Every structure is written in C-alpha cells, then in structure tokens.
C-alpha cells in the first residue's frame, strides 16, 4: 500500500486483504473497498482511455455518475463490459481490464494517433465519412473508438424477473428516503425502499454531520434498526430503479450475487429485474455534482469535490497529497475541511465568486486554508497525472477573465460546479422540470403521476432542509460559471471537456451552434453529448448551459432533452430473464410426442408446434423416408398425428347466419352432416384462411383451420361477434389443444376405420366425401370428417386429446394386416402439392383474393354480405394484371427453388422484370418428377407457356399448367 491510504477509522476491514488484477497486474485492497478506492490506494491514476481520442483518464467520481473509470469485469463466460469501478466492490481473484485501449490504460498505443482529433469533431459521423462511404471507414473507427467488448460466451448464470405491488415505493435510501419510508410506514402503508448502494445512508455515508446528538454513521445505524424492525418496510439494496413507466410501474435492477463471486454460477439468480407497481412513488434520488469546464479538465487527478470526501471518509484513501479545490458554491468548502481533518495538505481553495461569506467559508478561513476569491482554474497541467493548475482572477459579474495568471503545484484538484438533482426518473414519469435561477439547477415542477421528489432530488441540498434535527447553516449563493470567457487566446484554443465519456468539448458545443444545431434535441444527437452509457449525468447541464451562452439564450429557453431509461446500464441477461434457450419461447409438444419419439420420428418446428417431419427407418435419408411415406399412403394407408389442426366450435341459434358473414361459401344453405371447404377473407378481401367446416347440428358448426391460424381465427370470430354483431345468439369456443386429430389417408383408410367397430356406416353412399359423422366410443365423443388433403380417400378423426394414444395404438394394432404406417408432415406437404391444394400464407400473399386461387366464381355468386365482399369490387381487385396461382410443370429434373423469381416473357437471365415467384415446390415420388406451384402474373391466361425462373443457384424452365398434377379428375377422394 502507498501513502495514499489513510489511517484506519474502522470503515474498511483492515484484517482482510483482498487481491485482484487490473490489466494483468495484481493489486491489494481491503474488504469494503470499491475497485476505484483500491486502485487509488495503489497509486493507479490512469484507469481508462477516452472514447474518441484515447486520452488518459482517471477516476472522477465516487458513484453511478462516473464517466471515466469503467472496466471489463470478470472472466469468460461471466464477464461484463463497462462496469463502473466506483460502484463495484473488490473481491478476491477479481480480474479487470480497462476499456478502449491497447495494450493497457497506462500505455495506449492508439493514443499516438493524435490525428484522431481532426476526425472526431462534432457531427463527425455526418461530415468525415462521406467519401468513399461509411462502409469503408466503419471497421477502422470501430477498432479505434468504442467502450468495452461484448462477451462472446453465454453467461451460465440465471437471471430472473419478479413482480411486486406496494403502497409506497421509495427510491434512494439517503436521509430523505429513509425519513419518507418511515413516515409512510407509520401510516400503515406497505413500503418498499430501494437503494443502488449495498448499504443505506446516501451522502451520510461520507459526510461529516451531526444529527441531534448522533454522528452520521450512528444515525444510519439507528435508522437501519427502525427500518428492519418495522413490519411494513422492506429494504432492497444493490437495487437500482432504472425505469419509470405509466401508472407507477418501475423497473428495478437488483444485483444478487456479483458481490459474492462474479466468476461463479450461484444458487440464486445473478440479477433480477423487478417490475414494481406502486400506489405512490417517492423519489429521493439525490443530486450529482457538476464538473467545472476548463482546459485539460479531464486529466487524471481531477475529480468532483464531493467524491474526494467520499474517498477520504468512506474508503479511507486520499486521492492526492497536495490538493487545490475549485468551486462556484459553498459545498466544496466541506472538501477542504475534510481533507485538512484527514491531514492532507490543501494548497488553496479557488472560488470564482467575489465575496462568498457563508458559514463554511468562514470555517475554512478559520482553519487557515488560503481562499482565492474571484479566481478560477483556467488550465490543468501534467502528463497522465495532474502536476499543477493555472489560476487567473475572474470577474463573474462582467464575465471578464484577467490576463494575469499563476501556477499552483498540486496532484489533486477537487472541482464543484454546483449540483444537479437526479430528476431522471421524474422526467421518465412524464413530469416536467423548471430551471431554478437561485440554485442553478433543473428541479421538478409538474407531476403527472402519483409521485413526489424529495430532498436533494427536489433541489434541497442541505441536510437541514431534510432533517429537522440538524442545525441549519448560512450559505452564500452559488454563481454561474458554465465555461471560461474565451477572449484569451490560450483559452480559446484549448480543449475543455464537457462530456467526458463521449469526448465532447466546449468547442464542439460551439461548433454545433455555429452549424445551427441549436435545438437541444438536435444538438444532443449532433455532438452525441449525454449519449454515452453514463447518459450525461455529469455533462448534460453544462452542455446546454454553454449552448445557451453561445446562442444568447438563457437555460430555460434552451431546455433539456427528455431523460430515458435506463438510469444506469442494465445487463442483457436481466432483460432476458428466464427467456433463454429452450425457454425463449414456449414449445408445444403433441399429446403423442413420446410415442413419436419412440418410433424414431424426426421432429421439426411447424409454427408453434413441434411435430414429426417423418419417421426414420434404418439409415435412410430424409428424402427417402418422405418418399416411402408418400408412396405408402398412395398405395395403402397411413395415419398422421394432425392434432395441431385448428378446431373451433360455433354454437347458437344464429350460428349459420354468423358464419355466413365470414365464409365466401353459402353457409346458410348447408345441410346437417355436410362439410365444406371454405375461404375466409379479411375486409381487404385478402384470403386469410381456408379450412373445412361442417354443420353438426342445425345450431352447431365445427370449423377446422390452418394450424398456424387456430388462435387468430378464434379471436377474429369472437371480436366480430362481440363488437359488430352482438345481437346474434352464438358462442365461439376454441378447442384446438383440447382435442386431438388423426388423419387417416389412403385407399385402405375406410377399411382401417371399419376395424374400430363404430356405429357408423362407412359405405361410400352412406358417408360420402365432404360429410361429417359424430359418435361415441364408450363415453368418448368422436367426430369423423371425410375429407382429404392428400388427394386419396381420407378421414380426419377427432377426439379429446387424452384419448389420442389409445386411438392411435388401436389403429396401428388393428390395421396391421392393412399395413398401416404413420407418416409425417413432410409427406403430407408433398402430397398436397402434387394435388395442387393451396396452402394459405405460403401459396398466397397479402394481395391474393379468391379469384387468384380459383374461387372467384364462388365469391361472386354470393350476394349476402360477408367480410371482404366490398373489397372484391375495388379497382385493384378487378384489374387484369393480377398474380394467380398456377401449376409449374418443371422442364428438366431440377426441383424449383421456393421463392425462385419468375422472369417476364423473353428474358432468360436477370436483370428482368419480375412476373411472379415459385410458392411451393417438391419432388413428386408419385409422378417421379419435380412439381411446383407459383403465383404468376395473369397466370390463368398463360396456360402452356414456358417461363424462365432464376434464383441465386441458377436458372430453371417450367411450363404453366393447372395446379393439379395428380388424379386430375379428382376421383380418388370419392372412392
């Protein structure tokens, strides 16, 4: 340890030495140290490099507002980029890497490129990279600029989301938040107090204060006890309220295990994202000190005055040995007193004000510390560490800087430009701000949700404003010092940093203003001020105040940009929570899944369902298996687990009239026991759904839908029922997942069904194609629809899902002699393409109307109102040039690519006008050749025409035909 470590006052556990590495070097600290305080005690002044110019940067703050001291934390797969060293505790074996530099922060070779300065002025994104284009520049810029690196491995730790409802949510456990929490608890409210630090107390953790007869720390201990013993209060530490949304919903990011061991999977989640809904929200989020703007104010060794107090009092380390304090307000005087008390030499206190006379000013004078009133620091000097500052007299009332200047040797400068209330959450809540001319700060004005800001977050910076037990003191008022007057040549040409993390200087602000980016929202984006991961906590107010000065506007006129969540960065893991890997989205398994698995099914995802694509025999390829299954269905009989088929029950006196409004078919004319293939349109007349529906009873219809549309169509029907035709007596019941379906297809399917011994006559005349029969087997309800999506004789047998297995096994057992085999979805898709059955959504798009897929006559015949009817007579629907679904008979033996582009007549290679595309394409094992369907411009008038098709792989030829390639007379389904 070095001489920077102060004698123990009991804040750190000096018994416990902890080792960690930073940029490959090992350092030691004590339990209680943050990374920042430990590095400081080890005399590490350069902790990172700046975003654009790779300037050496040191620790500037002691909390969440830190702009410079950020690091890559931990080792893969646990690493986290851009962790603030000021808010992260050290732990044994922790590894840290500085960001944006190579090979390390101290010796950064990229900094040699002083040339960078020329490129990275305000608006450089828009100016410099115009030629030869951003694509040329971006790899280089990405290499040189940026912060942190994205972890490449998956973090194995768990992350979680949790929900909570409370009466009162208090954000921030400083003196104001603690007081509010206890007061609300007394009124019998359930109170949740969240604090980003690992302990409560806020500023009292480092301020010298006397509260009645208690020291600050004793007071905190007493409050902790009160909070713990109160049954109405819950305190959450290491929990940052990061977002404030409508109706008092707040997002709180809680870090549960990182302080124990970053590089280990813990029993509990690593982080939790809480969704907290509160009746009332109290924001006691404190305030953040502002830096002063002067030349080279980003040198390591320059920090916020309050941060110095934090390091000295809370972390028992002095950030320097010879200190200068620069200020425009009384608060920084506390730093001078604190340092002197700790035995650290204060060279001088430089106060821009002519004649401050507050209580603290006198206290500093009495302590014998030199105060340079009416002076400012104009420049910091040093290499990688501050060695001296230049000071000049200033007249703030006239805004005139004297040409007289002198140097003060020092290794630490504490600066204070006043305080900005942390109004981020208030602003996110929709609340408005007003600029307080006395406090020189934006404070909350209008509230739109049930919340209030208290304490420093409301502009009450003195402890006596918050706690009545504290003796008030007289303060002299703060005076504005946003930027130095620029009459002097040495000031005008120097870099004065405004946004430390995004490397924005006062001259960038000036440049943006000269280029007329004067609206604060434009200005922000042009200069990128406040857009780094610190979200401009220390820079925003300075930037817009300077913008105001340059454009001769006062601060309220310039205004602020809206604050946006999150307040501090939140890991992607916390956002994702449990929704990773297999839990990313729910997987739906069939009721028969385990049977399919045991039978060597190869699964695939079809929409939301995981279904057997085919069943594998021995070592056959997928293609061979699918062909085998197709041929088996075509020649014998196959069964398919068709359970994802959408199933909707529609009942009620007016069921027929109701459905009549949806289908283009004449529903009212349907007889009981009859099924129809129907199309549903939306109001634009787009075909949105096709399926077989049947009339089970006069007042009872049963709809089957495309699997992917099952939930949507049920919702569609019900929304119209409730909102447009509420007078109709009808009930819509979705039953897709409750009922399973087995599709039995093939010439022997009737014989197979007959083995079940049901009380149904399956004879062709008794149970013809497109009819439905209901029965029971034992007490189990069964619905059998005679229909086909393969072109063969076929039935769809539906029953409650829990009976699927016994039915499935019974069919296989009793059908042994018929050689029944299961088949998968792929074989079905091949067969329906051979047959030219349309697949809505695949063979159609958002412009397809019934007329484009061969159902125009049916739609035109229907005179009664149905959804989409009027749009069928729109100009676009009536025009000649429409894409129509046709068959594509392939010339040659290559299977056409789905999505292959159909070129206009006369073109054999691109570029060519596009006249459609291939929508379905398979190799037909039945016909022993490839077949396809496609949407082709004016396809119906172009039968027999040979067209050229291309995709990235090559070009193809095909002849336009009707869509049906197999059993074109359609006799088999009636067999």
């Amino acid at each position, binding site marked *: 340890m070095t001489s920077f470590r102060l004698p123990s006052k009991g804040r750190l556990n000096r018994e416990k030495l902890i080792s960690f590495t930073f940029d490959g070097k090992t350092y030691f600290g004590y339990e209680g140290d943050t990374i920042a305080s430990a590095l400081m005690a080890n005399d590490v002044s350069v902790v990172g490099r700046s975003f654009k110019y790779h300037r050496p940067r040191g620790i500037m703050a002691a909390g969440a507002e830190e702009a410079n001291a950020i690091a890559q934390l931990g080792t893969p797969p646990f690493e986290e980029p851009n962790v603030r060293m000021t808010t992260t505790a050290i732990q044994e074996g922790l590894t840290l890497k500085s960001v944006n530099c190579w090979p390390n922060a101290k010796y950064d070779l990229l900094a040699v490129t002083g040339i960078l300065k020329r490129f990275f002025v305000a608006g450089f994104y828009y100016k410099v990279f115009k030629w030869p284009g951003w694509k040329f520049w971006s790899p280089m810029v990405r290499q040189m600029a940026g912060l942190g690196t994205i972890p490449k491995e998956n973090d194995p730790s768990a992350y979680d989301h949790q929900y909570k409802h409370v009466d009162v949510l208090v954000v921030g456990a400083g003196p104001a938040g603690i007081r509010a929490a206890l007061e609300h608890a007394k009124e019998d409210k359930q109170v949740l107090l969240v604090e980003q630090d690992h302990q409560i107390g806020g500023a009292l953790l480092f301020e010298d204060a006397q509260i009645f007869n208690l020291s600050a720390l004793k007071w905190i201990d007493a409050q902790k006890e009160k909070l713990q013993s109160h049954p109405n209060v819950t305190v959450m530490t290491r929990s940052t309220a990061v977002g404030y949304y409508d109706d008092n919903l707040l997002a709180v990011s809680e870090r549960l295990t990182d302080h124990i061991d970053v590089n280990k999977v813990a029993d509990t989640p690593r982080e939790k994202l809480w969704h907290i809904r509160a009746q009332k929200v109290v924001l006691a989020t404190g305030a953040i000190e502002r830096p002063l703007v002067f030349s080279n104010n980003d040198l390591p060794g320059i920090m916020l005055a309050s941060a110095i107090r934090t390091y000295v009092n809370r972390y028992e380390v002095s950030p320097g040995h010879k200190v200068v304090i620069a200020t425009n307000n009384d608060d920084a005087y506390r730093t001078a007193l604190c340092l002197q008390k700790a035995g650290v030499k204060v060279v001088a206190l430089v106060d821009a004000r002519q004649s401050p006379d507050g209580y603290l000013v006198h206290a500093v004078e009495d302590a014998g510390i030199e105060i340079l009133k009416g002076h400012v620091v104009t420049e910091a000097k040093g290499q990688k560490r501050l060695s001296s500052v230049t000071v000049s007299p200033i007249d703030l009332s006239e805004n005139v800087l004297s040409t007289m200047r002198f140097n003060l040797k020092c290794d630490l400068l504490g600066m204070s430009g006043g305080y900005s209330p942390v109004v981020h959450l208030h602003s996110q809540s929709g609340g408005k701000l007003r600029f307080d001319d006395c406090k020189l700060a934006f404070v909350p004005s209008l509230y*739109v949700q049930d919340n209030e800001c208290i304490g420093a977050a409301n502009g009450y910076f003195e402890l006596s404003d918050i706690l009545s037990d504290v003796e008030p003191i007289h303060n002299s008022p703060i005076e504005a010092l946003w930027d130095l007057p620029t009459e002097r040549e040495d000031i005008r040409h120097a870099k004065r940093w405004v946004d430390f993390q995004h490397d924005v200087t006062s001259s960038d602000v000036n440049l943006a203003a000269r280029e007329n980016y004067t609206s604060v929202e434009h200005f922000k984006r042009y200069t990128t001020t406040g857009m780094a991961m610190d979200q401009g906590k220390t820079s925003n107010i300075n930037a817009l105040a300077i913008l105001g000065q340059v454009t001769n506007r006062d601060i309220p006129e310039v205004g602020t940009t809206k604050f946006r969540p999150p307040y501090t960065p939140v890991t992607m893991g916390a956002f994702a929570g449990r929704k990773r890997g297999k839990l990313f989205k729910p997987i739906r398994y069939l009721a028969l899944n385990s049977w399919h698995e045991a039978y060597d099914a190869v699964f695939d995802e079809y929409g939301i369902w995981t279904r057997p694509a085919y069943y594998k025999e021995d070592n056959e390829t997928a293609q061979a298996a699918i062909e085998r299954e197709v041929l088996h269905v075509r020649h014998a009989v196959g069964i398919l687990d068709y359970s994802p088929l959408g199933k909707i029950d529609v009942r009620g006196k007016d069921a027929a009239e109701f459905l009549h409004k949806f289908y283009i078919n004449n529903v009212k004319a349907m007889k009981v026991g009859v099924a129809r293939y129907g199309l549903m349109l939306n*109001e*634009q007349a787009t075909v949105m759904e096709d399926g077989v529906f049947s009339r089970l009873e006069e007042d009872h219809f049963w709809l089957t839908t495309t699997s992917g549309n099952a939930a949507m169509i049920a919702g569609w029907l019900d*929304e119209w029922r*409730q*909102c447009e035709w509420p007078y109709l007596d009808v009930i819509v019941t979705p039953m897709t997942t409750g009922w399973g379906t087995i599709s039995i297809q093939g010439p022997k399917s009737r014989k197979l069904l007959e083995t079940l011994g049901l009380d149904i006559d399956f004879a062709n005349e008794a149970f013809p194609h497109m009819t439905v029969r209901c029965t029971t087997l034992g007490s189990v309800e069964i619905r059998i629809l005679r229909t086909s999506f393969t072109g063969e004789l076929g039935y769809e047998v539906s029953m409650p899902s829990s009976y699927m297995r016994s039915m499935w096994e019974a069919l296989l057992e009793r059908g042994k002699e018929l050689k029944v085999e299961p088949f998968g979805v792929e074989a079905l898709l091949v067969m329906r393409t051979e047959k030219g059955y349309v697949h809505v959504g695949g063979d159609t798009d958002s412009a397809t109307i019934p007329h484009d897929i061969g159902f125009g006559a049916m739609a035109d015949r229907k005179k009664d*109102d149905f959804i989409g009817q009027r*749009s069928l007579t*729109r100009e676009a629907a009536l025009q000649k040039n429409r894409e129509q679904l046709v068959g594509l008979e392939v010339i040659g033996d290559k299977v056409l690519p789905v999505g292959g582009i159909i070129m206009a007549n006369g073109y054999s290679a691109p570029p060519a006008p596009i006249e459609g595309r291939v929508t379905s394409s398979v190799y037909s094992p039945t016909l022993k050749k490839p077949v396809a369907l496609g949407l082709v411009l004016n396809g119906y008038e172009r039968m027999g025409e040979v067209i050229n098709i291309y995709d990235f792989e090559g070009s193809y030829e095909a002849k336009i035909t009707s869509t049906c390639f197999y059993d074109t007379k359609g006799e088999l389904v009636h067999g």
Partner: protein
Amino acid sequence: MHKITCPYCGERSEEEFKYAGPSHLERPIPASEVTDSQWAEYLFMRDNIKGISLERWGHIHGCSQYFNLIRNTVTHEIYGCYQMGEQPPEGWQKLGDKK
C-alpha cells in the same frame, strides 16, 4: 405500462390486453350500395388523435371481452370504459380539462 380496468375483471396490467382499433367505426353495408370512397374511409382512413381517444380494447389474455376505453393519447390518462354497443358518457370530450 398502463393499468387498465377491465369492466369485467377489474384492474389489470396492459400486457393482458390488445388494442383493437378506434371505437364506433361504422361498417357500411350492403356492399352494392357502398361507394369506393365510403369504403376507403371505413377501411383505411384513421384520425391520428392528439388528446382524448375512444378506443376498442380486448382483454384477450383474461376474460376475452372487448370494451371501449376513453384514453388521453398525450398524457396516457385513462378516464374509464363503457361496453360494446354503448355510447361514450356525455361530456367525454372535456374529460381532459383541468378541474
């Protein structure tokens, strides 16, 4: 994230609901008597309301019931709801005015 009071279930999180377009949209029929412009008005033309908006919402992850919501698109304030087929309460246009 709004809290929405479903008239059937009570206060619930916005996640359970679906916005289903503006309320009181008149569907013009019969088709044979509807002009192209009337139909286009119904199908496509929507007011981009700044202020108080009457909207159809469905509690689709709850009771599945649709209802009308009176909502301020600027302040996100929700003033109340009424059932399908009903008209908004009198004076709804002035709900946003400060008392």
